[in-house]
Each structure stands twice: as structure tokens, then as C-alpha cells.
């Protein structure tokens, strides 16, 4: 019984991270109609930036976020305004090719700078701390991860639903041409959005890096899980991506209990089954592309 609860907790933590990975993809797909193939490599870049910062300052991995998050925001802003904005609104192939190229450049750059060795991030004491409820022990880190993910989603949701910025985002997602006619600066909006996405990604990257070692070539796998979270939840549904990530994480961890090597396989299996049963995703309405 206790081991089941602990397994579930571990699944929720992993799922929360996938949900954070998926958030950025979901947003850029929904608003910019663009798929960023380099998404996974940007996650890995965030983890390596954290390695750099912890190495230089001696801070813990979580404290390094104070520097890594603003840095990644800047990277996102620059990447969007200098590069990706040139292909937004063009046919899908242009953005696919550009971000595919970006993905390769990032992987090789990381390999050049940090070598191909696997690294991991140290959480310090936090990784070992846990609550004791009866005979049940719940780790602080998984709990904090889940809480952080819910907070990021709730914040993003409120930003989109209640602020002027969010109205602009929804207007652009509906009809970019009409949005420009009411004075929306879509290019700057995209730059800010990609900045926020990368800031959220760096949070996920550091938390994931504490849990799982990474190497410069780990990006595509991250991208795959992020994608599965988005599609599982249904395109165009923010909280759909959240639950998509959770389901994926739970499936992988439960799968690991059945056979240690088949965690990812069970994740893909659940993904396939859902896709067959509900091609529009769990929360997708099926009408939007």
C-alpha cells in the first residue's frame, strides 16, 4: 500500500515535469501555429546553464534558477525576435526546418562546450527531506515540483484569461490579421511569450536534472515527452497539456514497476491508446486544427 502511494507520488512528480515541458509547446502551437523542434534541446540548455551557475557560485541547483530563469527569458526573447519571427505565419515547413537546424546547432554546441559526458544537478539537502505521515514518507522535492507546476499553470492561465496581455494572446491565436488591425504588436508578443516559455522550461530543466542525469543529446527525448503531453491533452487546451503530462508521467512510473526497462514504453503505449480512442486528445474539442 505504502509503496503504491510512493510510486504514485513519483509518477506525479515526473508527470508534473512533463507538463512543464509541454506548456511551452502548447503555447507556441496554439498561438504562433509553430512547432519548435529545438524545444527539447532548449530544456537541456537550461540544465547546462544551471550546471555553469552552480559551478561558478557554489549555489544549489534550485538557487541557480535565480540567474538561469532570467537568462533563459533573454535567450527566448532574442531567439524569437531575431530568428523565429521570420517564419511565424509562413507555412509549417519553414519553422520546422529552422527549429530542426537550431536543434542540431544547440546539441553540437553543448557537446563542444560541455563534452558528451552525462551530468546531473545536486539539490543539496532538499532531495533527501521528506514528510513523515504515519509510516508513509513523502519527499519534499516531488511535492515542491508538483506545487511549482500547478502554480506555473495557474499563473499562465490567469495571465491568458484575465490580463490585457492574455487578450492579445488569444486574439492573435484566433486571427493574427485582425489582431494587428486592433493594434496588437504580434512580434513583440511572441518574443515575450517565448521568453516566458523558456523561463518555465528552465524551472522544469533544473528539477528534471536533479532527478535524471542528462547529456547534450538528451533533447529529442524531452521533446518527445513534451509532445506526447500536448497531444494527449488535446491541442489548444492549456490544462489538457497539464493532465496529459501527469498521465504520461504516471504511466511511465507504473510501467517501471512492471518492468524496470519499459517505463518509456508504457508511456508511449498509453499515448497510442488515447490517440486511437480520442484522436483530438482528452480535452481537445476536435474542431480546432
Amino acid at each position, binding site marked *: 500500500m505504502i509503496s503504491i502511494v510512493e510510486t504514485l507520488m513519483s509518477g506525479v512528480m515526473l508527470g508534473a515535469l512533463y507538463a512543464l515541458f509541454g506548456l511551452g509547446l502548447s503555447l507556441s502551437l496554439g498561438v504562433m501555429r509553430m512547432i519548435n523542434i529545438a524545444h527539447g534541446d532548449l530544456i537541456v540548455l537550461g540544465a547546462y546553464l544551471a550546471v555553469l551557475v552552480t559551478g561558478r557560485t557554489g549555489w544549489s541547483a534550485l538557487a541557480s534558477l535565480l540567474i538561469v530563469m532570467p537568462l533563459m527569458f533573454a535567450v527566448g526573447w532574442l531567439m524569437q525576435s531575431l530568428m523565429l519571427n521570420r517564419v511565424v505565419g509562413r507555412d509549417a515547413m519553414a519553422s520546422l526546418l529552422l527549429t530542426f537546424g537550431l536543434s542540431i546547432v544547440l546539441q553540437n554546441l553543448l557537446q563542444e562546450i560541455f563534452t558528451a559526458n552525462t551530468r546531473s544537478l545536486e539539490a543539496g539537502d532538499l532531495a533527501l527531506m521528506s514528510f513523515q505521515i504515519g509510516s508513509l514518507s513523502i519527499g519534499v522535492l516531488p511535492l515542491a515540483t508538483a506545487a511549482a507546476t500547478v502554480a506555473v499553470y495557474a499563473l499562465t492561465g490567469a495571465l491568458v484569461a484575465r490580463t490585457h496581455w492574455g487578450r492579445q494572446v488569444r486574439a492573435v491565436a*484566433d486571427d493574427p490579421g485582425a489582431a494587428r488591425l*486592433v*493594434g496588437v504588436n504580434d512580434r513583440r508578443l511572441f518574443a515575450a511569450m517565448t521568453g516566458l516559455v523558456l523561463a518555465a522550461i528552465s524551472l522544469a530543466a533544473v528539477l528534471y536534472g536533479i532527478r535524471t542525469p542528462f547529456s547534450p543529446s538528451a533533447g529529442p527525448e524531452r521533446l518527445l515527452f513534451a509532445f506526447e503531453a500536448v497531444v494527449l491533452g488535446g491541442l489548444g487546451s492549456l490544462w489538457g497539456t497539464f493532465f496529459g503530462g501527469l498521465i504520461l508521467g504516471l504511466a511511465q512510473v507504473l510501467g517501471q514497476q512492471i518492468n524496470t526497462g519499459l517505463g518509456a514504453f508504457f508511456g508511449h503505449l498509453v499515448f497510442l491508446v488515447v490517440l486511437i480512442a480520442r484522436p483530438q486528445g482528452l480535452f481537445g474539442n476536435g474542431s480546432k486544427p
Partner: protein
Amino acid sequence: MLCATRLSASYGLFQALFNVSLTVAPGETVALIGSNGAGKTTLLRSLAGALPTAWMSISLDGQSIGGSSEREQLRRGIALVPEGRRLFASLTVHENLLLAEHNGRPGNWSVMRVISELPTLANLLERPSTALSGGQQQIVAIARALVANPDYLLCDEVSLGLSPLAVDDVYALLAKVRRNGTAIVLVEQNVRRALAESDRYYCLRKGQLVLDGVSARADRHAIAQAYFGV
């Protein structure tokens, strides 16, 4: 004074406007007439900054403003009500208006004033903008351009697909806009209505200006000839 001088515009290789020149004085209503594909929408979109144009080809009060973005034109007081209304489906009626007001210029029109002038809107504010009748949507689309406080309101096919009653509502709103001192450029399929609602008219055919004049003294016969090119 909003002027187009030898304005040309293209969609890729297809040229839709050829050296069109027109003027719109502050406060006047100008009708653009012509058959489908004559270039009326292209002309409005060029003026509003939605299509790339040469810098010298559009001027406002003597200053060249061609090649600007929609946002820059909006800030100068040129707003377009696009064909097909194009309200934002994910936004409520209220949000559609708030968004435009926030990005627009300060002035006489505000979301508050629009609501008080159009009481029927008050009950619809929290609805998704797609859950309205065509006529209501058109009113909201015009209101959305109005709250940016333009000096020049460009209206593309504002009566298309509406019932006669709804069309009257739309023109009642435009009459209020006119009384406010705002200039209107009107694209309208119904030539009789276009002439009745305007001070002057321009007739386009195949991307070229073929006739213009004062609406009250318009010669039906000359317009029919210009319209169809016979």
C-alpha cells in the same frame, strides 16, 4: 486630409491596384463602389497598413505614411473594420472592445460610451463574440474600431449578409460616428445606399479609378457604365 497618390498594391505577382489617387477630407464620408474584384478591399487594406505600399503613395495631412504597419496607422487615427467582421472568437464581446480600446488612442469614444450609446450591446457583453447575430457582430466590429478613436474609419462591406433591419442599425451607428466628426470611407455593394450615405464617391474597376464625383449629383447612367465598363 488622408490621401492616396498613385497608389499601387499587389498580392504576390498579382497586381490589384494601379495608380489610384483619392482624398478623404476630415469629417466627410466617401463611398467606394465597384464590382467584385475591383480593388475596393485592397484599397482599404492598403490605407490601413495591412498591405505593403510605397512610402510616398499614402499621406496624412501632408506627411507620407505609406508602408506603415497597422499599429502605426491606428496610432495616426486610421482604423479598419475588416470585411467579414472578424471578431475574436475566444474573447467575449466586452474583451473584444477592451482590447481595442487599450491599444487605441484616447478620445471621445470609450467602451463605456459605446455601451451607453448602444443599449442592446449591454446585455451581450459577456457573450462569446461568435454567439451573436450577424447584425450584432457587425455593430461590435464597428464599435471595436471606434473605441480606438480614429479620425478616419474605413468600413469594408459592413452590410454584407445582413437583414434590412440590421443594415439600418449599422448605418444608424455610422451616422453617430459622422456626427462625432469622424471621416468614413465606405465600401458598399448596394450602390444606391452607398450614394445615399456618402458625400462623395469613387468608382473602381479592375484596380483602377474610373469615376468620381459628388454623391448627391451622381449620374446613375455614368456610374453603371463605369461600374461595368460598357
